[in-house]
């Protein structure tokens, strides 16, 4: 396809009705499983991801891998066979999944305070239930929530977001599958939004150097917007959990 479609119409709306700087609707929930130490579910638009965290616990299997000064972090990415419009052959183990696992690990390592847990191990499992663009960002965001749920100390939130260029000119944030297919290259970044550190950056194709700064700025802005949403979710979750343990009474007292 040589002609790229116009992704932002003359009136400034994208194909699904968003404006260029608007995220898709984000819904999230922490503590969705009881088995793991921490878990979370996130929906970004129609992209749906589950994350579970086990640990920190003793190093299992090959003990020689254990490190004296930090915890080992394992990531496993998988996609449900029904998550894409064509059924996938297998959920994990293909090249793309392995790559995703490595990228996830890289982003999360930047936030986890691994030095607090020598000789131990943290396992993070991420499963995509439905993919509609922006799979990697949703996975990072879900994993962050699950880590917080597990009570593992983080330097700060690690959030990810994608961005692209519409009509070769207008940067837009949080790219849906439809836009990925019709549009140009997509830039994905994972960042520590408070300190504005980028921990991972990936491009589906090359961007022209003139475009890169504005697309990057847009993606970073997206990360910050997501951080606000995650933060809200964490606070309300903590409040809920607190309520059930009678902690809310004390907090109310303090407020009063």
């Amino acid at each position: 396809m040589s002609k790229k479609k116009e992704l932002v119409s003359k009136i400034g709306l994208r194909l699904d009705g968003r404006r260029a700087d608007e995220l898709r609707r984000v819904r999230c929930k922490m503590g969705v499983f009881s088995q793991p130490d921490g878990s979370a579910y996130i929906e970004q638009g129609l992209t749906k991801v589950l994350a579970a965290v086990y640990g920190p616990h003793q190093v299992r299997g090959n003990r020689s891998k254990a490190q004296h000064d930090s915890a080992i972090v394992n990531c496993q990415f998988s996609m449900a066979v029904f998550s894409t419009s064509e059924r996938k052959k297998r959920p994990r183990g293909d090249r793309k999944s392995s790559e995703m696992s490595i990228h996830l690990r890289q982003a999360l390592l930047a936030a986890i305070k691994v030095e607090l847990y020598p000789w131990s191990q943290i396992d993070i499992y991420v499963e995509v239930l439905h993919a509609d663009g922006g799979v990697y960002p949703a996975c990072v965001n879900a994993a962050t929530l699950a880590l917080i749920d597990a009570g593992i100390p983080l330097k700060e939130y690690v959030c990810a977001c994608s961005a692209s260029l519409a009509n070769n000119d207008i940067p837009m944030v949080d790219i849906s599958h439809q836009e990925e297919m019709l549009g140009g290259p997509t830039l994905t970044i994972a960042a520590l939004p408070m300190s504005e550190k980028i921990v991972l950056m990936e491009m589906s194709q090359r961007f022209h150097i003139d475009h890169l700064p504005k697309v990057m700025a847009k993606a970073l802005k997206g990360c910050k917007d997501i951080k606000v949403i995650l933060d809200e979710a964490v606070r309300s979750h903590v409040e809920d959990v607190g309520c059930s343990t009678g902690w809310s009474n004390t907090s109310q007292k303090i407020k009063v």
Partner: protein
Amino acid sequence: MFSTRAFIKKNKVGNYLKNIREHYIRDDIFCGLESCKSCEVLDTSLTGGFNNKNNLFKFNHYIILDTNIILDQIDILEEDVFGNVIILHTVLKEVKHRSLPVYKRLMSIIENPTRHFYIFTNDHHKDTYINQEKGELINDFNDRCIRKACTWYMKHMPNEKFVLITDDRGNRNTARNEKIKTCTITDYVKNLENSKHLQDKLARKDFHTVVDSDDFYPPHLPTVDIIQGIKDGSLHQGTFRASTSNFLEASVNVDEFEEPVIVQGRAGLNRAVDGDFVAIKILSKDEWISPSDIILEDESVTEGVDEVLEKEKVLKKTQKKANAQPTGMVVGIVRRKWRQYCGILQPSNMDGLFHLFVPADRKIPKVRIETRQAEFLRTQKIIVAIDTWPRHSRYPTGHFVRALGKIGDQATENEVVLLEHDVPHSKFSEEVLSFLPKLPWTIKEGDIAARVDLRGLDICSVDPPGCTDIDDALHCREIEDDKLEVGVHIADVSHFIRPGNALDIEASNRATTVYLVNNRIDMVPVLLSSNLCSLRGGEERFAFSCVWIMDKEANILETRFHKSIIKSKKAMTYEEAQMVIDDKHQVHSIAQSLRNLNSLAKILKRGRLDKGALVLASPEVKILMDSETHDPISVEAKKLFETNSMVEEFMLLANISVAQKILKEFPECALLRRHPTPPPNNFDPLVKAGNHLGFAIKIDSGKNLAASLDEAIREDNPFLNTMLRILATRCMMQAVYFSSGMYQKDEYFHYGLAVPLYTHFTSPIRRYADIIVHRLLAVAIGADCTYPDLLDKHKSTDLCKNLNYRNRMAQYAGRASVAFNTHLFFRGKLQDEEGYVLFVKKNALQILIPKYGLECTLYISEEGKTSPFTYDEDHQTQTAGDIVLHAFDPVIVRLTLDSKNIQHEKFILQLVKPHIEGFSIAPLTEMETKHKLTEIESGKKNKKQKKS
């Protein structure tokens, strides 16, 4: 700012895949009315200052249109009488889906702030969004969306009035029940105050059906059947190409067959118009026929059908089974490619409202239109659009769009040529002009520092007389050790035209300067084309230089590219330069360098020909115009000097050198030019013609073709070789621009020039491709920086598509202009001229008259008369008595212009020599030659003749 919103998912279930997409519904969409209190007022083009005045609705109102009104009546919408029109987003999407050209026209209306059109995004608005119900047809759903928006507007702004215009009766009735004011477009236009003339421009889809008339054409299959048929292979689809010589024949290029499929006759063509994308059914093999070799024209002046039935019979009689090609019939139209057509009203005494329109393009059928001003329109060239072609109607029906001017006027005819060839020719807009350098233009210190100063060199330019857009200049000087330094200096247009600004966008859309006989449609404003970029003699100019160090055998030892500043010593014509070279007494440095250049060019040319470059021929003529009356005063074949070839060789060399450089630097996105090797069957006419004359034309490679063309010489007919070359030229493919990333390396080949790599670098003033090449080269040598579109191979492929299209059209437009002026020249003249038989057909000879570059038909058998000739198909000859006429035989013909049909003036040929009793006519005597030509050299320049 970001906020989450309730949303509804939209399911789109395809064949195997289930796609779910999000659809956000918003609460921040502006209704567009200035007086609104409840919306957040943003930019809007609707205004209280404009009033729609209509007798049907005696109050100010806003207009809402349905999809079909926009698709059918875009001509009316472009008229400046409507305003305050609300275009619903659902309607806009549907228009875009159904017709891109109409969409583009609509968008330009919307973007024009004086028209007051506003897009309302009803499908994302929280109150006007509705869901398609189960079992609801898409059309009904769209109508419901429109009505929903109307009722919302009525509730939202109770003090304003809204009118829905739709031609769908059902929709109107439902709308009335919902208290929406509505009417048809016809009623609306009829009741417009002081715009009643617009009625002529209404498209007539609902044309009164003649109840008792028989259906004249077979029905088209319904769309579902067509799709099914194509899927299961029982039908095929392709582009319908009408024949220029036979109005009852056409061909359809279909993927499944190598040869084009022939369709013939009324039922075979079945209302397809040239360019349409049609579905065809292939007939069984025993019904296949070969392309007809008779010439048939539609000569009827009324809508009567007798004439076409008669001609169909004639056609039937001549059908042949020998060399049969796949034959089929059109069973349906996949996509219409109708555009607006230029032409005239059929001169006739038809009374009443209905008239026949005759398009200038022979491939287009006549069109039935309704007009109240036929008397006036008969004197005019007019534009007409086709609306529909019902089964019972002999001709399609359409509507009048606008008049261009008086028939036969130079200005009108130029306009027709430009319109018919889609040449953008409006004045440059203010915005475009704002990017021109401010005068007085001076060279700044910084410019000099960034460039190599070549002002001291003896540079000169050689061009056709009267050339004002000089884009190349040359120099040559001896440096030590018998080495020569040769420089080609090209106008540095990309210095003035920066990427992405309005000037650049306009130039890239125009793509090329178009040369008509007495007019030049510039690609860039004249300040650049004829002044700042033009390398005029004695003036300091910026150039992009390609400099070689060569030995005297023209071997390149070193190539350099750099931006430079030059001062051409002299702007010469080809003739002047030739005289300087030939005049042995002139020994000044320019004469020396010209002689050196000339001898190098000869070596280069020989080398090129040895490698298999083709020398092709096409009869090019030059029309001399009277500078005052602008009437052509003489038509002659172009004269060529050695210096033409000299300049050409160095331009070729520069283009090749640049192509190598930019491809090396940008393997993915270099803009190059390829000339594909023609498929062998393209050469059939040439090989056949060769065989009949006893020459074996080898076509397996360009080199062999060149060699066998060189050998095809016959003493008694010196023009025969040129004729063969003219034929060979017609077998060639079009050379095209492309982006290197989109093709394999071996496809880069330029067949005609026999070089592996080629591009265009040397004419940036008149070709946009060269500007891109300049930019690429500038980046490659570090003289400029890139920008995103330059390095995007998809973008540059899109650009190439436009360049190729515009180039082709510019070429056709140039030819059409020459043809018109040749006709003008021959009006009222009578002349005997030398000509050559180009093709032998069954009822005619195609004659080429090289002196005027004319190709005309000499009919040798007329209906009802017995012809003295007998046709031998195998040997392609016509025999009368003991005279045998072959292809390429010289003849003398009498040339007159038949002006009976003002639109299609045509030459009438009569045979003078060889003399055939009862057919030929006696030669003209001196006395009879009424118009003796006096050639007056006029300063009018018409066309650059450089090799491209």
